[in-house]
């Protein structure tokens, strides 16, 4: 079964579900009249078109050959990189820019092999310092370099 899941079918499914989600969402909105079109009508139209495209993409899958490379959707790097962004978001307000950059760097280093934690930490500190200098001091970004968590 999984062998049959090729890119076309998955893409088609994805399109249909995104279209369906927006279509359902548009039910809460007024469609208005032909003359005074409401906020829901245009999104609903586009969502229907998206669903149609999704079906076309999915159906065209059978015709295309099986010469594609096997599809591996999951990558261990995905959670690491996304995690690094989330950590940055969690730290930036309370911790400030320098710690946020440092943590973001450190987390993201788990995606590289071989793993060198000490080197990554030093790199993160240097990058954090450089960013603080350029963005906060240089461009006047309204964020503290070291935030309230550290008693500033």
């Amino acid at each position, binding site marked *: 079964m999984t062998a049959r899941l090729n*890119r076309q079918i*998955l*893409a088609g499914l994805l*399109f249909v579900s*995104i*279209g369906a989600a*927006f279509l359902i*969402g*548009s039910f809460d*909105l*007024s469609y208005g*009249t*032909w*003359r*005074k*079109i*409401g*906020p829901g009508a*245009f*999104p609903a139209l*586009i*969502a229907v*078109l*998206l669903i149609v*495209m*999704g079906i*076309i*993409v999915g159906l065209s899958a059978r015709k295309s050959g099986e010469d594609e490379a096997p*599809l591996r*959707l999951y*990558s261990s*790097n*995905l959670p690491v*990189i*996304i995690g*690094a*962004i*989330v950590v*940055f*978001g*969690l730290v*930036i*307000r309370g911790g400030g*820019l320098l710690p*946020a*950059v440092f943590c*973001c*760097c450190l987390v*993201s*280093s788990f*995606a*590289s092999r071989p793993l060198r934690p000490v080197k990554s930490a030093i*790199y993160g500190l240097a*990058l954090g310092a450089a*960013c603080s200098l350029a*963005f906060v001091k240089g*461009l*006047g970004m*309204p*964020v503290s370099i070291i935030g309230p968590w550290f008693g500033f």
Partner: protein
Amino acid sequence: MDTLNALLLGFDQAILPTNLFWCLIGTLLGTLVGVLPGLGPAATMAILLPFTIGLEPVTSLIMLAGIYYGAQYGGSTTAILLNLPGEASSVVTAIDGYKMARQGRAGVALATAAIGSFFAGTVATLLLALFAPSLAEVGLLFGPAEYFSLMVLGLIASVVLSRGSLPKALAMVFIGILVGLIGQDVQTAVPRFTLGFEEMSSGVNFVVVAMGLFGIGELIKDLENPESRTAIHAPFFSMIPSREDWRRMVAPILRGTGIGSVLGLLPGGGALLAAFAAYAIEKRVANPPEGFGGGAIEGVAAPESANNAGAQTSFVPLLTLGLPANAVMALMFGALIMQGIAPGPTLISEHPDVFWGVIVSMWVGNLMLLVLNLPLIGIWTRLLTMPFHYLYPAILVFCSIGAFSLSNSVFDLWLLAVFGVAGYIFAKLDCDAAPLVMGLILGPMMEENFRRAMFLARGNPTIFVDRPISAVLLALAVIAVILVALPNIKNVREEAFQE
């Protein structure tokens, strides 16, 4: 005479020290990010866009334009030195450029690319100055129905001229439009698709979407297959083309410039199409002793001139009609809106300083590339060979800081994460993200014009075909779709996009 005065006004703007400074920074940063693996011009623009927002409108556009050609130039550099085209429009450059580099003529290839680009840029700038004002006058005749049809044509053309499957690209456009509609409805102030998040009522910022799709998505994918990047360590200092080289590059540069300037004007055109077409024509016309693919200087000069000319003239539909021709122009469009300037036919009369300043600074930016980047090639190549595990944390950090700084909101970082995952999945499923960004930018305007047109027509949808300009535009869009769907043309199109 008017044009001359206007150009002088532009010069006044372009040579202001602050503008010169940011133009320089833009070209340098653009080249820097452009040579980094996996990041093409669209990703480069998306990552660097937030840092231009604090500047004056003219200055920020000048910097963005600088980033754009810088990124283009960076793409050519990697194409020649590494056989890794940093962006699609340098794919053809890599064929002969890399061969030249292998033969120890990397310096000459890079110099040819730079000279061709500069010449093409100069010509395209002049064309832009001459023709943009009259096109803008045509644009002034457009009502909501015409605008709606124009956007339909623009979207369809950009999809038809892109690679990959047409239904997929159309689906991506529709997703883009839907994402673009998230937020408060302009007419009724009703929140749409916000899932109850207060932060989404002003819509999803396009920079975050573009950054997630192009930047983060690509980054995760690049981490999976770490390619070994070994730049050619040829003697770079033999950069000066010989008399023979000069003689051989003149005609290809002229042809490339001509082809690029015309193709750049088309909706959906731009640098990519220009480069492919120029290479194909050069193959028919020129007869280099090495043969094409064997390190012919013509194979570098023509596409590089063409892609730069195309890149430049693709500003024309953006600045005169408010129609972005490709994803990069769509980002420019978004940047203009963020600066409070509506791109469109009234731009020239309402903000002449912006319009002419940007046009002249394009030329200045090209000059800077020529003068500064050639000596800096050594630094760029060192960057090229820098291990990816040093680069990607920095890219990630820049994206995060950029997304956060857009409105000092942590919520934008969560959105960045979401669109990063989306970008990765789309890349895995062979769905090009560029049409999505086009839809994202054009979607809200399409809806707005659609509703206005319907209101003016008292609810009669035939207004879109009753008005002649609108009917022609829609007919062109339909013809484009039919042509691509026909089996014969489909094959030609697929062949054309194969290297």
